């Protein structure tokens, strides 16, 4: 994303001054020393992001939103903590892990949404700055708020940015944006349950395709077979209606695998059979995530002890590039409806589990950082996802 020019980041419009927030004193939220005509002196003690203390600055008028938002996974970042905990066997917040927690805060922890980073300015991770000359907006902007953070996968898929692929059928610019499926209620803590990650079975506020389209379950033969289950197996909707999506092989944390991201489409077995919201699927679309046993070695964590016994690295995904007709659903004349899928390269097979590193990594760095044992651990981690040959 192109950063805002420096002046635009701090420019305040006359229109903003006419709004309810604009009629409040600047110092009420930002402190500083407005009596001084000197720039440096005037900005002494300034609070650039007041909503980092939402209780104090936003709470007096927006008490309910602030209270609910405390358990939002945008706020708690519980997804990071929980996924690490089940792979490592301990929590970054445990006593004696202060160093690791500091590393987390400095790296992953910066992707943390405050009230202001959705409703006033761009997220800090993309340079910040006022989105609408300091005006507050009830609905965050798709481009400069939501996909500023969720851009490299969701944003690009949803808007059809990948060459040769189309935008999601739900994407109608300026009409159906993120809030169409992710309304404020869901974003601000949902149904009041503490969540461990986005696909948590308690995340009942998250909309599923079926919630809007359940009247089409018997509308055609394909739905009867693979949604109603007449064929004996049920697919997640994306198995038929998703285009190829981005898989990641390199992590921001620096350690572990180092490969570039790439587009692919993979179908795996559903490993979420204990999850009440997603247990009905037998086959799901899976996306590779950039985790390896040594991902956090630069933080002093040499190995994730339970790497192969906890979570797959090919994980359930709901790509944001839905179409009615996809390469899976369109078959040539005279071909069976299953011609493109059954026994196709879409299925995640044992040999698809491999070194996830760029070919030039070895040339530049000597040996692969990812050895034979790690490959075996990767295979074990994905044992519930891989589709074996019959």
């Amino acid at each position, binding site marked *: 994303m192109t950063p805002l020019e420096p002046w635009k980041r701090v420019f305040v419009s006359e229109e903003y001054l006419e709004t309810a927030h604009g009629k409040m004193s600047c110092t009420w939220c930002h402190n500083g020393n407005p009596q001084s005509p000197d720039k440096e002196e005037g900005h002494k003690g300034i609070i650039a992001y007041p909503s980092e203390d939402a209780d104090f600055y936003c709470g007096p008028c927006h008490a309910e939103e602030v209270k609910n938002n405390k358990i939002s996974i945008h706020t708690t970042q519980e997804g990071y903590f929980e996924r690490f905990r089940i792979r490592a066997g301990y929590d970054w917040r445990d006593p004696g892990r202060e160093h690791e927690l500091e590393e987390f805060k400095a790296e992953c922890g910066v992707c943390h949404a405050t009230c202001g980073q959705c409703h006033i300015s761009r997220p800090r991770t993309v340079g910040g700055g006022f989105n609408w000359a300091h005006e507050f907006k009830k609905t965050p902007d798709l481009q400069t708020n939501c996909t500023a953070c969720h851009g490299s*996968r969701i944003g690009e898929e949803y808007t059809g940015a990948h060459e040769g692929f189309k935008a999601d059928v739900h994407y109608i610019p300026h009409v159906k944006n993120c809030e169409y499926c992710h309304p404020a209620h869901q974003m601000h803590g949902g149904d009041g349950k503490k969540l461990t990650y986005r696909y948590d079975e308690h995340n009942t506020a998250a909309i599923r395709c079926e919630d809007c389209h359940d009247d089409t379950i018997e509308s055609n033969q394909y739905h009867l077979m693979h949604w109603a289950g007449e064929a004996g197996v049920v697919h997640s909707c994306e198995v038929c209606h998703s285009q190829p999506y981005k898989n990641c092989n390199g992590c921001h944390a620096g350690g572990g695998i180092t490969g570039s991201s790439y587009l692919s489409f993979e179908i795996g077995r559903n490993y979420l059979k204990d999850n009440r919201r997603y247990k009905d699927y037998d086959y799901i679309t899976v996306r590779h995530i950039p985790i390896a046993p040594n991902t956090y070695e630069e933080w002093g964590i040499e190995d994730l002890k339970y790497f192969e016994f906890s979570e797959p690295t090919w994980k359930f995904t709901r790509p944001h590039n839905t179409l009615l007709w996809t390469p899976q659903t369109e078959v040539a004349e005279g071909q069976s409806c299953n011609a493109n899928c059954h026994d196709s390269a879409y299925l995640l097979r044992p040999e698809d589990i491999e070194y996830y590193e760029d070919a030039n990594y070895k040339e530049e760095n000597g040996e692969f950082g990812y050895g034979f044992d790690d490959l075996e651990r990767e295979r074990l981690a994905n044992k519930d996802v891989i589709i074996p040959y019959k």
Partner: protein
Amino acid sequence: MYYTQPIHIYSRGHRVLFIALILLLASCDEYGLLQNATEGTDQCVSCHTDKDLLKEIADPIEHSEGSGEG
């Protein structure tokens, strides 16, 4: 015995004063405090609404990484 029923230590006069204080604070909030709070805002606004000035003096951005996680 006085410390077993602390509510009775407030006389009628205390209660009147207390209510008066609340009313005073409420009126301050509506007319006084807010006005005081906006003092100095002019200084902030005069710079931050001036595009030409900001173009001259606004600090460059430290970093911008582009689109993020997912």
